[in-house]
């Protein structure tokens, strides 16, 4: 049976892992390669690296990081952050990344998803969607949550599936960093309208939150600080889910 996945997310800046609350207040959480190795040993199913640096040297640093991570890691990993062209994607995949996540660049140029999926296959393309609740609808935000994209979250998710995305990484900005649980109504809604795997992100604070998200239709759950600061061990999380009847890889 296909296992539900646990995915630690590493926000990286210059090769170091940082984690913010509500997209702000960065704290240092260690070397990206070391953390990656630790998570793999502890039973993480996949990893996501989001490059949040903005320097000129950015692309080179990211490629170096991908190469170092790929040389030690024997589980799949996704790379995202500032990727704007098919050539960027090729370089990252060729350096050892398994999937590329597209966020702002996909909103600004939806054709990028189509072209990338056609060239590298849908399984390599993750559409990262950041949403915030405004009145009764979920609005898409880009540029690290700073700018409204004037798109409806669910409609945009449907559109990226049509364009060829293989997975959706859905982050609730309202929940991110709060540790009050994933946005369950949002996940349930999305699960009704799309047919590709969903990675839930934003809000994990305790064991039950993961169970809740999987029950709402998430195929994978992503968390960052919870794992970085060892507030929750992956192995204990998986044992808990297994006891609750959720298929996991132990």
């Amino acid at each position: 049976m296909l296992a539900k996945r646990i995915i630690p997310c590493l926000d990286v800046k210059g090769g170091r892992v940082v984690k913010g609350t509500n997209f702000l207040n960065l704290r240092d959480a260690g070397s990206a390669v070391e953390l990656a190795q630790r998570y793999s040993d502890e039973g993480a199913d996949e990893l996501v690296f989001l490059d949040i640096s903005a320097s000129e040297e950015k692309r080179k640093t990211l490629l170096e990081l991908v190469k170092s991570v790929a040389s030690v890691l024997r589980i799949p990993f996704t790379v995202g952050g500032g990727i704007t062209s098919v050539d960027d994607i090729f370089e990252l995949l060729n350096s050892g990344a398994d999937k590329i996540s597209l966020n702002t660049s996909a909103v600004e140029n939806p054709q990028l998803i189509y072209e990338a999926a056609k060239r590298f296959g849908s399984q390599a393309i993750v559409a990262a969607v950041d949403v915030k609740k405004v009145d009764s609808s979920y609005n898409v935000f880009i540029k690290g949550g700073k700018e409204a994209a004037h798109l409806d979250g669910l409609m945009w998710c449907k559109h990226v599936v049509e364009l060829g995305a293989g997975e959706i990484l859905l982050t609730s900005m309202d929940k991110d960093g709060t540790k009050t649980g994933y946005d369950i109504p949002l996940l349930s809604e999305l699960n009704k309208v799309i047919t590709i795997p969903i990675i839930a992100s934003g809000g994990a604070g305790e064991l039950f939150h993961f169970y809740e998200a999987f029950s709402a239709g998430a195929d994978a759950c992503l968390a960052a600080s919870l794992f970085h600061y060892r507030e929750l061990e992956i192995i204990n999380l998986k044992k808990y889910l297994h006891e609750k009847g959720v298929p996991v890889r132990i």
Partner: protein
Amino acid sequence: MIALIDYGAGNTASVSNVLKDLNVEFILTNEKKEIDRSEKIILPGVGEASSAMLRLKELELIEYLKNTTKPFLGICLGMQLLCESTEEGNTDCLKLLPITVKKITSKNLKIPHMGWNSIKKINDSKLLIDVDDNQYFYFAHSFFVPQSKFTTSVCNYEFNFSASIQLNNFFGVQFHPEKSSMQGVTIIKNFIEKC
């Protein structure tokens, strides 16, 4: 010496890293004469079937690969290409196995089949030595090779499909052994040492 075929469709870095870990001599190549000098061949595969076949055609490798007697391991798309044809881009493949690769279609299933799933051995194969039933491997695909007499292990995603196949010297795995933790490394080691 192992020839790891670089035809622009593969994540060759990950397979290369595993071969380095295992201290195996290998060459990343798309040239017939280099491949011919090697003892074994690995055809990795991420990407789309019709463009992969087109690339193999441009490289004039199709006839060579079809007729090789060297141990051959196709990974993911590399395994699917061993079949007769595929619904992905409606293209002919290497035609070694009289089987059509099909698209996963089901209203209730998430597609791609993405993540870790367990396999069950149904036929002996040197590739699967020391691999236990119910071990998890990493899959990422939307097309599948139906179960047949060539199937050596199956995976279940509400239906059974080939997780691994073998026809004489041709071996194939649908999952990514290079991304499947230690049990994946065992598969690659088996191919190098036992196949």
